[in-house]
């Protein structure tokens, strides 16, 4: 593409974007119910008032996300490795792994959170935390471990068997081959889909509010109920988007870099 064509493409993209959003904005702001919607969802005064509280509550979302992520990365890898074990001896373990993944991918996240969050504390076991946030995190770890283990497994299966053959032919054990040859290549390949699942996890921390933990969504619900104004929901949404966009762009960048690298090496 020549410089002139490139500039023209940018100009066209810019113009069509401006026209599109002007029309959309016009359509919305001239809708019959707009003044009412503006007052209940986009109240500037209300936004300024509830934002600090919601932002503070949002820290709990970030905290849950960070804690859950660490455990998910470890447990999911273990689950994926268990499911890749060869031979009939390990059949029970493999079957257990499959059952786990099927179950926790099948049950809606909100149900797992509800069952654990309301059920586990009710058992009144000693030395088991009663905190709803704790059980919310446990539920997220259980559900996302099932998803992420599938991602890891796809990575393990994408490493050609000849790599394992080469490692084993040198006298490495199955575990040594897995640890030093297969897994490093597998994990590198699945980093983009892994990050994609973590974007989902970031959002799903809002479901823990259902148990009563005051995270961003719960806080905005409280604020909305107190003022009969929905602007706090918009504030919470803005915070989630602000956290997700950088991760999404980072994922795109990684995918692109990976593709370029493979093209450079491939030909």
């Amino acid at each position, binding site marked *: 593409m020549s410089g002139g064509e490139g500039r023209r493409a940018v100009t066209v993209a810019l113009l069509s974007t401006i026209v599109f959003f002007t029309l959309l904005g016009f359509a919305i702001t001239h809708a019959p119910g707009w003044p009412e919607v503006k007052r209940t969802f986009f109240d500037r005064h209300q936004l300024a008032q509830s934002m600090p509280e919601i932002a503070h509550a949002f820290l709990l979302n970030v905290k849950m996300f960070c804690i859950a992520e660490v455990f998910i990365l470890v447990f999911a890898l273990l689950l994926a490795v268990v499911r890749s074990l060869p031979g009939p001896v390990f059949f029970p373990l493999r079957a257990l792994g499959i059952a786990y993944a099927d179950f926790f991918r099948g049950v809606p996240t909100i149900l797992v959170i509800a069952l654990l969050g309301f059920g586990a504390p009710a058992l009144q076991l000693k030395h088991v935390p009663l905190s709803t946030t704790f059980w919310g995190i446990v539920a997220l770890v259980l559900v996302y471990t099932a998803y992420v283990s599938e991602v890891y497994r796809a990575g393990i299966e994408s490493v050609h068997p000849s790599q394992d053959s080469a490692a084993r032919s040198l006298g490495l054990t199955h575990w*040594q081959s897995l640890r030093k040859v297969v897994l490093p290549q597998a994990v590198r390949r699945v980093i983009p889909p892994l990050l994609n699942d973590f974007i989902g996890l970031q959002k799903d921390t809002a479901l823990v509010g259902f148990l009563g933990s005051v995270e961003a969504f719960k806080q905005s619900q409280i604020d909305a109920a107190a003022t009969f104004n929905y602007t706090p929901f918009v504030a919470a949404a803005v915070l989630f988007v602000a956290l997700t966009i950088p991760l999404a762009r980072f994922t795109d960048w990684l995918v692109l870099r990976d593709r370029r690298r493979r093209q450079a090496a491939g030909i």
Partner: protein
Amino acid sequence: MSEALAVHGLRKSFGQLEVLRGVDLAVAEHEVVCLIGASGSGKSTLLRCVNLLEPIDEGRIVVEGEEITARGVNVNKVRRRIGIVFQAFNLFPHMSVLGNVTLAPTLALHTPRAQAEAEATALLDRFGLGDKRNDYPDRLSGGQQQRVAIVRALAMRPDLMLLDEVTSALDPELVAEVLEVIRELAAGGMTMLIATHEMTFARDIADRVCFLDEGVILEQGPPAQILSEPKEPRTQQFLQRIIEAGRL
């Protein structure tokens, strides 16, 4: 001459397909034996069986007097003594050349890292790869990659080397550098079992040539005899096709 490798009545099937149908083969110490035969005749399978990469159905494989196909044999220990080099190199793409060569000595032989790196560097220097030690495999030509794969196998100080059509995946102009390495190994007294399509090379390097046909060794003998005056009609046909293809 003592036997480095003895194969007795080896049979191997993949599902319905019987690839090896009773192979008997002995390789003496310091001997270089070339396996020739059409694609699908079982050359690669034979080599993979000797390295225990494929479980065998019947027969026995003995390496330096020890039956490696017996029950309870530690396959990892057996494989450390037998080096294999594959057609497709199979280098580890996420490791540097040095990392590829030192991985097995440090993990399987517990050689201290410094010593393993010194030995690897010496080997790489010997085969003209010293300046590539920190490069990653995708930076190397096919010939260089295959030489690294040979060095990687040699780093385990094997008693026996198995080479599985190591030049078949190479551009023609890169074949010579790899064959040169193998010649040097032969000159150094390495015991080798080589599956190859390079008849000229086999004639040069082999002490003995075995013609594998439909899962059995049909004919074997000194290269001059097998390649010039084969007795079996099947061997004659095979060589005729090779000559017509301009490969002998």
